[in-house]
């Protein structure tokens, strides 16, 4: 299990890897969150970003990231999981190891 076990998760997906990187930079500047992984798991150029940290930081970071990403391209999906359970942790780790 990753070392962020139990920390709140913020995940969002954009349709461009570059926009995801810009959003990650905005997110880590906005709040004290760790970047768990950025995966390109879609056929096009999309990327999924996972942020970990305290729930208030994750929410602030997600707002900043979404705001930064929306300027460049539509943010496909974003979700905040306050308290990931055992199964959710395993699922999160699965895609990163790919």
């Amino acid at each position, binding site marked *: 299990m990753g070392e962020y076990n139990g920390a709140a998760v913020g995940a969002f997906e954009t349709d*461009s*890897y*570059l*926009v995801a*990187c*810009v959003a*990650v*930079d905005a997110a*880590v*500047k906005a709040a004290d*969150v*760790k*970047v768990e992984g*950025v995966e*390109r798991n*879609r*056929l*096009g*150029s999309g990327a999924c970003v996972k942020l970990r940290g305290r729930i208030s930081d994750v929410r602030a970071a997600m707002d900043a990231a979404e705001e930064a990403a929306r300027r*460049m*391209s539509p943010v496909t999906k974003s979700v905040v999981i306050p308290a990931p359970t055992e199964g959710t942790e395993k699922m999160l780790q699965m895609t990163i190891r790919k």
Partner: protein
Amino acid sequence: MKDGAYGLVEVLGSSNAVVCVDRMVKTSDVYFKTWNTRCGGHTTIFMAGDLSSVNAAVSAVAENPPCQVFYTAVISNPHEEMVKFVEEMAAKFPGK
């Protein structure tokens, strides 16, 4: 040596990426950090250097693009979390 800024350019295909990197390196004092190519062919180039030269390089590609450029962006004063993320990506390539 902390980089002042990162310049990001997204193009289609690795060969286009090489053309863009070549132009950017000749435009101003930036160096090629790493790139990320995945299925679908979109290649994202990471250039590094101080802010003004990265701005000059990215705008050189953005103004008259040598090939189809999807997005360009400049990240100024990257957070150390961002630097760690880019370093991890750069470390994937041997001999870097």
